[in-house]
C-alpha cells in the first residue's frame, strides 16, 4: 500500500467517524402498507447550548418512538413516524437554512426551534410553506404575534412569564433596586423587557440594564459595573451556560443580592456550574412541577432510564409531538392543511399541562411555577398564573 493511499484511507476513516457519530440507531421497520410520516425537529445540537438541544431531541424522539410502538392509524393506514433532527446552532441564520431543508424534506410538521431567536425567523418559512410548527420552548411574544396560522407553542410566553417574575421579585421578595442583564437574543431581550415593565409597575427601580451574549462566560466586568449601582436583586434573562458562571462570579465578587432567572436557568446544569453559589437562586418555569402532573413522574422515570436526567424542555417536546399527532388523528390526515384546524381547537392532556391554544397559537392560561435552589436542588416554591388553581 502506498503512503498516499494510506493517508487518504486515514482521512476517509476520520470523515466517516465524524459523520457517523450522529446517526440515530433507529431501525426502519417499514412494512408494506405503512405510511412514513416525517416530523422535523430543530435545536442547537452543537455549541454552548448543545446539552439543552440534545435534551429537546431526546424528548422528541421518545414521543415519536412511543407513537410508533403504540401503532397509530390515520386514514386507514398504519403510520410510521420518522424524525428528521437538524442542528440550528442557536443561530438565526442557520435556523432559516434548516427550516428550508426541513420543508424540502416534506415534513408534516416541525417541533422547534429551541430558542426564540431561531424560532422567529424560521416561522416565516414554515408559514409560507404551510407547515405546522410547534415550538416546545420559544417564549418571545413576537413568535406568535406575527399572525402566522401555523405557529404554535406549548409553553407560556414571555409576557406571561416576565410579568409573573417581575411581580414575584417586587411583591414576594421585596426588591426595590433591580439590575437586569440579558443576553441580547430574541429570548433574553424579550423576557428582560417584560420583566422590567412588571417590576417598574410594582414600584421597583431598574438601576442597571447590562448585556452579554450567549457564548460568554466572563461577566466580572459587567458584574463589577452592576455592583457600583448597589441593587438588591439581579435578574438574568438568558440560558444556563451563562447563568451558572454568573452566579459563581457574583459570589466571588462579594455581591450580596438575590439572583433570579427565567426558564433558561432552571436546569441541573446551572447548579453544577454555579456550585455552592447556586444556593438561594430563583428561576421560573412555565407549567406546574412535573411530579404534580398526571403522567409527569412516569415520563421522567422512563426518560431518565433511556437518556439522562432531564435538562429542561424534554417534557415540552414530548407534549409537542403528542399534541401534533393527536391533531392528526382527530383530523384523520397527516397533511398540515387538513390537521391545522384540529390542532388549533385541540384539548390534550400532556405531561406538562393541559394543552389548549388561543387564537394566536399561544398556550391558554399557562401556569408558571417559581423554583429556588435549596440544598443543591431546584425546589418548587409556588405556582402562579391563570391555570394555577386548575392544576391537579
Amino acid at each position, binding site marked *: 500500500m502506498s503512503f498516499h493511499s494510506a493517508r487518504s484511507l486515514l482521512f476517509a476513516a476520520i470523515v466517516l467517524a465524524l459523520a457517523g457519530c450522529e446517526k440515530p440507531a433507529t431501525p426502519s421497520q417499514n412494512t408494506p402498507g405503512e405510511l412514513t410520516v416525517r416530523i422535523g425537529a430543530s435545536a442547537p445540537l452543537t455549541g454552548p447550548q448543545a*446539552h439543552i438541544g440534545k435534551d429537546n431531541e431526546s424528548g422528541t424522539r421518545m414521543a415519536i418512538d412511543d407513537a410508533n410502538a403504540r401503532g397509530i392509524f390515520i386514514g386507514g393506514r398504519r403510520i410510521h413516524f420518522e424524525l428528521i433532527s437538524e442542528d440550528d446552532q442557536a443561530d438565526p441564520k442557520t435556523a432559516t437554512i434548516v427550516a428550508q431543508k426541513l420543508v424540502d424534506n416534506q415534513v408534516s410538521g416541525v417541533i422547534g426551534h429551541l430558542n426564540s431567536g431561531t424560532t422567529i425567523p424560521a416561522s416565516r418559512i414554515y408559514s409560507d410553506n404551510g407547515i405546522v410548527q410547534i415550538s416546545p420552548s420559544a417564549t418571545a411574544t413576537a413568535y406568535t404575534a406575527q399572525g402566522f396560522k401555523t405557529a404554535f407553542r406549548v409553553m407560556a410566553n414571555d409576557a406571561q412569564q416576565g410579568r409573573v417574575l417581575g411581580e414575584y421579585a417586587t411583591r414576594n421578595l421585596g426588591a426595590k433596586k433591580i439590575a437586569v442583564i440579558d443576553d441580547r437574543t430574541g429570548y433574553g431581550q424579550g423576557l428582560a423587557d417584560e420583566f422590567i415593565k412588571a417590576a417598574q409597575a410594582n414600584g421597583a427601580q431598574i438601576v442597571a440594564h447590562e448585556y452579554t451574549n450567549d457564548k460568554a462566560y466572563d461577566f466580572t466586568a459587567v458584574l463589577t459595573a452592576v455592583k457600583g449601582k448597589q441593587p438588591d436583586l439581579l435578574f438574568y434573562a438568558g440560558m444556563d451556560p451563562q447563568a451558572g458562571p454568573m452566579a459563581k462570579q457574583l459570589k466571588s*465578587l462579594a455581591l450580596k443580592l438575590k439572583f433570579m432567572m427565567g426558564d433558561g436557568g432552571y436546569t441541573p446544569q446551572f447548579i453544577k456550574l454555579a456550585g455552592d453559589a447556586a444556593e438561594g437562586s430563583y428561576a421560573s418555569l412555565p407549567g406546574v412541577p412535573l411530579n404534580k402532573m398526571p403522567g409527569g413522574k412516569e415520563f421522567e422515570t422512563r426518560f431518565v432510564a433511556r437518556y439522562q436526567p432531564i435538562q429542561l424542555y424534554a417534557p415540552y417536546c414530548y407534549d409537542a409531538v403528542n399534541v401534533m399527532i393527536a391533531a392528526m388523528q382527530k383530523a384523520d390526515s397527516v397533511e398540515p392543511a387538513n390537521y391545522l384546524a384540529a390542532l388549533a381547537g385541540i384539548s390534550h392532556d400532556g405531561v406538562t399541562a393541559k394543552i389548549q391554544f388561543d387564537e394566536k397559537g399561544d398556550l391558554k392560561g399557562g401556569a408558571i411555577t417559581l423554583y429556588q435552589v435549596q440544598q443543591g436542588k431546584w425546589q418548587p416554591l409556588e405556582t402562579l398564573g391563570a391555570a394555577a388553581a386548575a392544576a391537579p
Partner: protein
Amino acid sequence: MEIFLQQIINGLVQGSVYALVALGYTMVYGILGLINFAHGEVVMIGAMLAISSLTALLGIGVPPLLALPLSAGFAMLGCMALGYGIERIAYRPLRHAPRLAPLITAIGVSIVLQNLAMMVWGREYHSFPQLIANSPHSIGGAIINDIQIIIFILALAIMAGLMLLVHRTRLGRAMRAVAENQHAAQLMGVDINRVISVTFMLGSALAAVAGMMVSANYGLAHYYMGFLLGLKAFTAAVLGGIGNLRGAMLGGLLLGLIESLGAGYIGDLSGGVFGSNYQDVFAFFVLIAVLVFRPSGLLGERIAERA
C-alpha cells in the same frame, strides 16, 4: 474608585490568561510564519484533560493538593503530545506549500479537534472541582480571590521562565536562529524539525496551563470554549506585535484591561447608547485598529527579536 480598582484586577487576571495563550500563537508565528488557529482548541483540550484527570485522581482518594499539580502535569503532557502531533500531521507536510494552505489546514485541525472533544467529552459543561477555597480578599474595597492571585502570579512566573529559556539556553538560541533564517540555521547544524516540534510542544504546554486556569477560575469547561478564547489571544498577539514574545505578554494584559474597563464603563460614558454587549467587540475593534494603524503591533520590530 473601588469599582475602578476592581475592573483593573478583573482585567489583569483575564489578561494574564490571554497572554499565556498569545505566547503560543506568537512562538509558532515567529518561527514558521504560520498562524496556528488550532491553538485555541489545544487550550480547550488542556482544560478537559485537567478536569478528567483531576476527577479521576480525586476519585481514587489522592489528596487535592497533590492531585492539582499531577493533573496539571498530565494536561501539559497530553497537550504537548497533541501539539507535536498537530505539527507533524497537519503542518510539516505543508511547510513549503503556499502560505494559504497551512492556514486552511489550521482551521481544519481546529474543527476536527472541536468535534473530537465533543465526541469524547460530550456536549455538556464540565465543572471544575473546587479545590482552592474561594475566599475573597479585599484590596482597597476591590475583591480578589485565591485562584485569581495564583493565576496572576503563575502566569508571570511562566512568562519569566519562557524568557529565560529563549534567551539563556542552547535550545532558545536554536529557536531564535530558526526564527531568523531557517536555511542558515540548518547549515549551522541546527535540527530544524526538532526545534519546530519543541516550539509547538512548549506552546501547547502553556495552552494546557491556560486552559486549566480558565476552567478553575470560571469553574467550567466546554468543548466550545477554545474558539473565542483563541481569537482573543490571537488579537492580543497581534496587538503586541505577532512574533514578539514580550509583545504577546503586553498585548494579553492590555487586551484584558481594555475589555474589562470598556465593558464596565461604556454604558455610563455613552449615556446608554452602547452597552456592555460590546465587550467582545472591543477585542476585535482593537484588532482592526492595530492592523490599520500599526500592522507590526506595539512592540513590533519583528526582525529584531523573534522566537
